[in-house]
């Protein structure tokens, strides 16, 4: 063994405080992965819902059977004659029955139900028509029909998904803050134990940033290792969830995005970076407080 080991040996770090920090960072990284996955998934859900409902509209024709065929034909003529509408197609009875099946628990008999006529409309997404203008034209022709471009549903669905996504991002921020707070606390406690050593370093001419550097190096590795363990466990959990066909079928938007290795690496680096910054802040604050 060399008689002089260099800077790394100057502070006698205790295994216990390192283990505690490692455990906290690993737990936080695990939670951060779920928060990040939640945020990404809800963002994708919002996009899926919005995109899925975009470019389509529906016209409901009064359930009154009298004159239904003429009014349907009238509606189709008006729609096909409207700029921004690519196609309009009246659904047949079987299509309507399929739409109603989830609410009736079986194929309903439309002969006994006052089901409305439905026209599916395909819109030009680059040039969607003004829904109030289309509705006015339908009303003017006495079609007894209601035009619905799903705008209200699109807005609500996107808003709900965004709200959940925002919560996930906030959870991620809180997780990061928790890592910083844990590092700050662990270092503050460690610095009490290292008081004599730090005093000796300072009397030997060590600048505050030199002392901070000793802790930063240690906490960089603790942060990175904790991040690696926590996110590794989380990834294993994701793979396990993905393997469950029931989960995969129910939540296709939870499919891993193509950039997941970078997200994983990002979490590991973020854990290390947060631990380093917290270490620096804790050391400089404590040294200045001591005078």
């Amino acid at each position: 063994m060399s008689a002089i080991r260099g800077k790394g040996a100057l502070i006698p770090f205790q295994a216990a405080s390192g283990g505690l920090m490692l455990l906290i960072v690993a737990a936080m990284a695990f939670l951060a992965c779920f928060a990040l996955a939640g945020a990404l998934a809800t963002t994708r859900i919002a996009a899926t819902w919005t995109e899925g409902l975009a470019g389509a509209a529906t016209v409901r024709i009064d359930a009154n059977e009298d004159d239904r065929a003429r009014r349907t034909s009238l509606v189709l003529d008006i729609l096909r004659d409207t700029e921004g509408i690519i196609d309009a197609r009246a659904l047949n009875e079987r299509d309507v029955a399929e739409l109603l099946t989830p609410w009736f628990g079986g194929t309903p008999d439309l002969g006994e139900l006052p089901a409305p006529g439905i026209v599916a409309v395909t819109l030009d997404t680059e040039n969607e028509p003004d829904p109030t203008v289309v509705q006015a034209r339908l009303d003017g022709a006495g079609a007894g029909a209601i035009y619905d471009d799903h705008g209200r549903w699109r807005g609500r669905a996107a808003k709900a998904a965004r709200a959940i996504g925002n919560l996930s991002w906030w959870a991620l921020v809180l997780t990061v803050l928790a890592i910083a707070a844990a590092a700050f606390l662990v270092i503050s406690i460690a610095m009490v134990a290292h008081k004599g050593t730090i005093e000796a370093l300072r009397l030997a001419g060590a600048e505050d940033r030199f002392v901070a550097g000793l802790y930063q190096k240690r906490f960089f590795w603790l942060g990175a290792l904790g991040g690696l363990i926590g996110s590794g466990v989380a990834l294993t959990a994701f793979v396990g969830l993905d393997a469950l066909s029931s989960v995969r079928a129910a939540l296709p938007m939870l499919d891993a995005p193509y950039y997941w290795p970078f997200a994983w690496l990002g979490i590991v680096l973020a854990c290390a970076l947060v631990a380093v910054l917290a270490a620096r802040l804790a050391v400089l604050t404590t040294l200045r407080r001591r005078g």
Partner: protein
Amino acid sequence: MIQFENVGFRYKRGPEVLQNVNLEIPAGSFQFITGESGAGKSSLLRLLFLDEVPTSGRISLFGRDVTTLTRDEIAWFRRRIGVVFQDFRLLDHLSAAENVALPLTVSGARETAYRDNVTEMLQWVGLGDKMEVRPPELSGGEKQRVAIARAVVASPDIILADEPTGSVDPAMAERIMALFVEMNRLGKTVLFASHDLAMIEQYKLPITTLRDGTVSSGMGAAA
């Protein structure tokens, strides 16, 4: 190089330890500081290695008023001052060599650049065979010599020693004293605090005596 102008000092709300101290120590000189226990010798040295600031008056070090120094400047100034503490202040988890290397390590020097220097220093104080030994396994005299080697390894301009012979036998005290005289011959300014008047009067060197927080100057009897 070192100038005290009407310096007063007290610890928080305690009594005044130093009162109106005026002192001028030229570069390259050797100065004994003596006085009874509690006379203020250690406090005077603490002011000099910037561990405390005067409550009144002005201390000038290397041409700067010490109260105007920033934290980084204090660190920089401390690298130009080697200190031998009465209680050694060695780090028990480091080897003797690592303790000696401390001022060089904190200054950012590479271990490969100073390894030979550290070895030479430990040999100079007669501990060349104890490089890897940790302080708890060293005797009081050996710890004192490690502390001396640490104080001089970075070639500081000023060396402060607080009772460096206080806990060793007379033969070791003489040996330690000879090391400080040698450092002074190499051009270092040495301030040597000791209450052992009999020992310091053997040397024909300036003596500053502290009594009730005030100073008087004199000279040792014989070389």
